[in-house]
């Protein structure tokens, strides 16, 4: 039997890789992919908790997280398409309109 801590460790490693990727990449598409990576890491830990605590609520939460991830991807990519149409760039350090 694998201890629950291993799953939480794996989940936190993947979450942190996603968070670091979100901070270091310049490309907006990869940043959105990194958000999906972080959501997946949380899903892994929720399913592991659901299995080890013998409670189905964790899996229900994963269901809702997948819904929110789909909505987030659709809206984020729509914003990206508009951004590329108006500015022609996908790099975050070249978008400085709102800088005071």
């Amino acid at each position: 039997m694998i201890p629950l801590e291993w799953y939480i460790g794996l989940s936190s490693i993947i979450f942190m890789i996603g968070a670091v990727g979100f901070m270091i990449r310049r490309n907006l598409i990869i940043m959105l992919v990194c958000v999906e990576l972080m959501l997946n890491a949380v899903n892994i830990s929720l399913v592991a908790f659901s299995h080890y605590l013998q409670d189905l609520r964790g899996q229900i939460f994963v269901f809702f997280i997948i819904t929110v991830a789909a909505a987030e991807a659709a809206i984020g990519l729509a914003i990206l398409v508009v951004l590329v149409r108006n500015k022609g760039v996908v790099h975050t350090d070249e978008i400085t309109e709102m800088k005071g």
Partner: protein
Amino acid sequence: MLPVIIFIYFALAMTTLSILVITRRNPIHSVLFMLALFFHVAALYLFLNAEFLAAVQVILYAGAILVLFLFVITMLNLKAEIFTDPFIGEWPVSLAIGSSLLLLIFFTLRDFLQGPVGTYTIEMIQRETNTKILGRVLYTEYLFPFEIASLILLIAIVGAMVLAKKKS
């Protein structure tokens, strides 16, 4: 012994794949490595007795969301992307922040204490089948959040169409 070997394989493969996702220069390669990662996550769900979620993971994440990403990448024509530096200049700072937060989690993980177990034992789930029992919980206990989820999807559809529509 066999479950430990399988888990170690999945842990190593998922860590490697996620590092590849954030370091590849070409966005298409990143998204394809993400696809492999999602299949590994689905297999890990099967390993944890969550069959319905494994299917949803493959259909929704790998089938819908990643295809949407691939569509947008191929539509945008990002040839110049391959020749520019993929990372921002301050990347060591972000790396230091990320690894120190990871260390913090690992130090707290040593004092982890498991709570009391619930009523859904593995035998019961196997007797009733995973999908049936999940549906029962979803449509009774979590009916109101389920309706809100449908509203979120509606807002996402309308918002995406309004944003991406060309101004006439």
